[in-house]
């Protein structure tokens, strides 16, 4: 990445970043249209003063808000759709215009009027950025127009106005269909890129049935053409004992005709099934019984079915949304110093971490039923389109090491979110029409995955950068993954769009939106290597090359400070203690010890707690079951996602990325040695420079070995993101932020420290 290195020392460490990038002058494709623009706009960069601010042109297109700085040198761009200062319209949460002379402020929606000339525009983004533009030197009229345009275009009246339609539609124009697409969406790609199963055909389901050994389950095709259920996919899996005729009959009893869906089979034969509520109370008993007995019949041991009521045990989507809003408030909106004082209690009252824990804990309960009780589990949720997605994925991630590879993880999301009909369109609120339906369920899921990842960093093929970028991709509205509420909606919208634009679809039945899994839509191959976890890649290398030597079986290290309680008797006896004594004196240990003791006696360990405890008393097998540590002290805030834009929270030249750097280099060395071995072992003809192109690691081994290279200077805890210009907290009606931010005493700045008197 070519960078213009900033002279100012303050930005020394921020100057290079990979995923936020320089404005592309050439727009994404001919489908992108400039709607409005204003010149001589200032983008606010620094908090204290405007001397770092950038001058340039603010452009609103039908895809993004773009800022083209006047005097920046062109840099190599690494995001293929977005430039350094770009915000996709779908990412804009709120458009606020300010006139600080008149002391006015207005939140703009679609088709609104603005009675004052804005001096400032603040964009609150869904990915936690807050971006400010000043219009001091811009023409008042053009400033107003561009603000109104941004507000209007960020509130599309119809899903077909989302940029993805134009983007994909243009590819069909003047062509004979599929051939001109970058790549086919479905399955095999001649370029060898997309290995992620999309579960939009019966063969993907068949493979999954075979892989999990679910021999008593079959692919059901009755919903082809979406004739039975509007929100189910065309293909899904049901017990073999249920005939299509039965299913059609039962379908009408379920909410939105959603026939229960098979998710996954445990190796013991227990199945994980998701089911919506039965809408007809008179039929409830009968249908429930039929379904349960069919699931029981599909279990090799004819085990029972356990119903897990998610609505009763988990927060609802509004709770989750409220939690995220509070979390955002303390992470990026409140001034750093202000939120610093009460950070822990504010974090607690946001309840975000509590919800993360609740979901993880619930998933552990389900795992216990599958793993230890050997029963099948039905996840029961009213519509079966939100909470079940989270729980079923978490259960599979914990139980099934297969799901922890990158492609299988993507397949998992395809299966349990996209195909199962998670309402991405509504939950992302892309149309900004119904705030009540907006909820970051998917982000909550990513956070849960991050917690697992954080506790078992070597068990997953991907990195936290991957999880973060995946979360951000929700706001790039070109991917089939996040644009629709269900497969049927995708089919209908794209058919309608095609016919209204006279697009000839050729052999396709619908427009082929790229799935987000086609990462080359967004990133270069080199940047995509940031998704590869060196600990996992290194491990694969070890196993492949070294069939007999299993270096990766986990050994308990001697530095294990936890108590090992393997094999304790299950029942806690109360011991032989008589009821105790009298208090001696106030300051005695007595009180506390007594409460210790009572805790012991009251503590009735449930079987699932025992299951968890047993798990933790054994050495971990990363290729086996993984349960998260659920003590509240062991869950952390996902800093890379939530705090990456906060300049005060950045660790210059530090953070987990510095360890990642070193691991990455080591893994790269291992890959290199293996290539050499292959060369010597007769795989002749392999060119020597193959490695450089195909290395899976972002940071490469240096040509001067024998010493560990120091992490590059531009690394920081926010890497590969950069706070510069991405978080300008608004002052009160346009007051310079410096006043608020000067409070951030602990942030290092020689000038401010010198001037301060305490």
């Amino acid at each position, binding site marked *: 990445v070519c960078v213009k290195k900033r002279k100012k020392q303050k930005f020394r460490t921020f100057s290079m970043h990979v995923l936020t990038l320089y404005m592309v002058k050439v727009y994404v494709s001919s489908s992108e249209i400039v709607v409005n623009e204003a010149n001589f706009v200032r983008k606010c960069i620094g908090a204290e003063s405007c001397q770092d601010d950038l001058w340039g042109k603010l452009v609103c297109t039908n895809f993004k808000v773009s800022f083209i700085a006047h005097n920046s040198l062109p840099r190599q761009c690494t995001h293929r759709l977005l430039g350094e200062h770009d915000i996709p319209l779908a990412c804009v949460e709120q458009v606020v215009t300010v006139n600080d002379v008149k002391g006015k402020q207005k939140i703009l929606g679609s088709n609104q009027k603005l009675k004052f000339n804005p001096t400032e525009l603040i964009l609150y983004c869904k990915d936690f950025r807050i971006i400010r533009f000043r219009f001091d030197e811009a023409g008042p009229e053009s400033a107003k127009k561009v603000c109104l345009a941004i507000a209007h275009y960020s509130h599309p009246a119809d899903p077909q106005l989302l940029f993805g339609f134009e983007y994909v539609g243009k590819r069909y124009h003047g062509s004979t269909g599929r051939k001109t697409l970058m790549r086919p969406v479905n399955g095999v790609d001649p370029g060898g890129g997309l290995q992620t199963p999309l579960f939009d055909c019966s063969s993907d389901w068949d493979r999954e049935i075979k892989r999990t050994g679910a021999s008593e389950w079959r692919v059901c095709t009755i919903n082809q053409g979406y004739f039975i259920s509007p929100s189910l996919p065309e293909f899904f899996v049901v017990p073999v004992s249920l005939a299509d005729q039965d299913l059609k009959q039962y379908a009408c009893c379920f909410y939105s005709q959603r026939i229960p869906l098979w998710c996954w089979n445990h190796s013991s034969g227990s199945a994980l099934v998701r089911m919506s509520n039965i809408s007809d109370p008179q039929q409830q008993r009968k249908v429930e019984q039929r379904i349960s007995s069919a699931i029981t019949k599909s279990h090799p041991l004819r085990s029972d079915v356990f119903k897990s009521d998610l609505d009763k045990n988990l927060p609802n989507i509004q709770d989750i949304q409220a939690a995220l809003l509070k979390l955002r408030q303390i992470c990026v909106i409140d001034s750093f110093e202000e939120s610093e004082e009460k950070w822990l209690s504010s974090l607690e009252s946001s309840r975000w971490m509590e919800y993360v824990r609740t979901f993880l804990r619930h998933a552990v309960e389900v795992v216990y039923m599958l793993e230890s009780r050997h029963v099948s589990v039905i996840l029961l949720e009213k519509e079966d389109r939100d909470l079940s997605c989270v729980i079923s994925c978490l259960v599979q991630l914990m139980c099934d090491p297969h799901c922890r590879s990158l492609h299988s993880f993507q397949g998992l999301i395809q299966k349990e979110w996209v195909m199962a009909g998670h309402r991405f369109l509504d939950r992302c609120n892309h149309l900004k029409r119904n705030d009540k339906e907006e909820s970051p369920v998917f982000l909550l899921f990513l956070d849960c995955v991050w917690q697992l990842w954080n506790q078992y*960093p*070597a068990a997953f093929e991907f990195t936290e950068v991957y999880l973060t970028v995946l979360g951000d991709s929700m706001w790039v509205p070109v991917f089939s993954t996040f644009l629709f509420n269900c497969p049927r909606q995708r089919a209908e919208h794209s058919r309608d769009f095609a016919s209204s634009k006279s697009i000839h679809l050729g052999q396709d039945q619908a427009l082929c939106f790229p799935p987000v899994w086609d990462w080359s839509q967004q990133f270069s191959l080199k940047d995509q290597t940031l998704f590869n976890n060196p600990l996992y890649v290194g491990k694969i290398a070890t196993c492949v090359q070294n069939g007999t030597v299993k270096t990766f079986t986990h050994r308990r290290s001697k530095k294990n400070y936890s108590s090992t309680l393997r094999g304790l008797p299950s029942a806690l006896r109360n011991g032989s203690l008589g009821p105790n004594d009298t208090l001696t004196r106030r300051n005695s240990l007595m009180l506390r010890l007594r409460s210790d003791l009572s805790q012991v006696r009251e503590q009735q360990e449930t079987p699932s707690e025992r299951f968890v405890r047993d798990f933790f008393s054994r050495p971990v097998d990363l290729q086996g079951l993984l349960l998260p*540590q659920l003590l509240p002290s062991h869950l952390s805030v996902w800093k890379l996602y939530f705090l990456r834009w906060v300049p005060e929270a950045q660790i210059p030249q530090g953070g987990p990325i510095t360890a990642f750097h*070193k691991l990455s280099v080591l893994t790269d060395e*291992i890959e290199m040695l293996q290539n050499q071995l292959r060369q010597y072992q007769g795989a002749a003809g392999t060119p020597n420079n193959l490695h450089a192109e195909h290395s899976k690691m972002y940071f490469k081994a240096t040509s001067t070995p024998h010493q560990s290279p120091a992490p590059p200077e531009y690394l920081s805890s926010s890497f590969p993101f950069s706070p510069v210009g991405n978080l300008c907290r608004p002052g009160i009606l346009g007051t310079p932020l410096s006043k608020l931010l000067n409070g951030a005493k602990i942030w290092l700045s020689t000038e401010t420290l010198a001037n301060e008197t305490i």
Partner: protein
Amino acid sequence: DRSSGTRVSDTELRVYKDPSKGELPLLPEEHVQDSAKDVTYICPFIGPVRGSLSVTNYRLFFRCTDREPVFGLDLPLGVLSRVEKIGAATSRGDVSYGLACKDMRNLRFVHKEPEDSLKKSVFEVLMKFAFPVSNNMSLFAFEYKQVFPENGWKVYDPLAEYKRQGLPNESWRISKVNDHYELCDSYPAALVVPVTITDEELRRVSSFRAKGRIPVLSWIHPESQAAVVRASQPMVGQNGRRCKEDEKLLQAIMDANAQSHKMFIFDARPSVNAAANKMKGGGYESEDAYQNAELVFLDIHNIHVMRESLRKLKEVVYPNIEDSHWLSNLESTHWLEHIKLILAGALRIADKVESGKTSVVVHCSDGWDRTPQLTSLALIMLDSHYRTIRGFQILLEKEWLSFGHRFQQRVGHGDKNHTDADRSPIFLQFIDCVWQMTRQFPAAFEFNEYFLITILDHLYSCLFGTFLCNSEQQRLKEEVPKHTVSLWSFVNSQLEEFVNPLYVGYPSHVLFPTVGIRHLQLWVTYYIRWNPRMRPQEPVHQRYKELLAKRAELQKRVEELQREAANRTASSSSERAGSPTRSITPVQTFV
């Protein structure tokens, strides 16, 4: 077995897979003093456990007898802060004993009183050996005679350390004025002071500084010559006393750094406390008297506040964590807030020295608690040498031990007076701050977390002489180096245990940690380690070592093949001399 013998109990309940291994391990000169069968340990996590209890002159050893597999409890007596009989005997003659520990746990045992009232209970024996100082006995460190390959007492040589920093030089000299600890009994013998100040003037300064702890150099910047200087508070008093030698000394410190015409005095205390000290004759430097110096208060609270904070923390984390209010409970202990203030203070000091090229003077009241916290943390940020294992040992020996942090008083080695108001977890706080930095810069420290935990465990264990006594003078008088083993002998004899494999030693690199509460976290692997629900997260370090082994193995194979290929080439070329041979790309080697 050296390592297992000296390791402080690393799990509360250690499982013995082989029941015969559950025997009492004894160190050299360790002797069983008493033991009892039929003791019940009330484990807060799994309930009552019956077993036998032994007390030696070093440890308490409990071995359960009613469970399979056998497990035990093994802790040095030094960690006990009090042993208390709770209540009267029950009708069956059972008596409860409560043991409060310095390492964040409480233990409770129930035992039948001996029927013969003349015979002492095992717990009475325990009380005697747990508090040898109160019972006029010597600490076990004076009996322990283990020989290690390396002598840790030789780790720190003050003159060598000053020489490393380029001292003495044209501006700074090493004074012998405190050779016999006459100037200041809590300071080291070797002091670095400006060349322009005579020993006589130093003597006069010492009467103006609390406990005679005059401003002396701790560290000097290799390029800018900005210095970190430590002291105690000036005895200004209510009348605003002045001392012209002290003013001259500070001016000389400033003059020694040609880069700056200013200096900073960091008073670690909250300004209110500093002002209140005037009533007791102390105080802070007035701007009138020290014209080119700017005074900054760092708002760090005193030892009593810190002790209270840790007490609250213990309540929150032991034995169980309350699920629903964990974060606000943690916040109410203020522990992380104190950590933050200390780190923030050190950061400001380091920033002034590094970015401002300005010399700084750091003091609190006596200059032996908050001052070493601040100077040593600032030094870790400024000087990468202190981030190595040996460098860190030198830092502790210098800033903490030689400059008289009152370890004996703050920890209360072997002293039963658990309510002593002089006890305070100042050193623990410092280690916590270092740990926080290691989290933020996982590749910048040569040592691992286990190193820090080992230091803390042996801070209390009284197995080694390192942390005994209150000052260099006392340690010399007690001949501690002669009669005890240094902790560093143990550590440096098995360094591989303590090495951070992710370490990248990049010299002359200054660390500026982020001190926001967002980036501080509770050190769960220390404070919550007794909870059986707690398991350390997957150790990346372990994986890293495995990858290293993998690399070494691959390398070996590549080299073998390379040799073979070379031989083949050599033989074939000798057969067909002159024919061109396929060139083989040289293989890079990495180790």
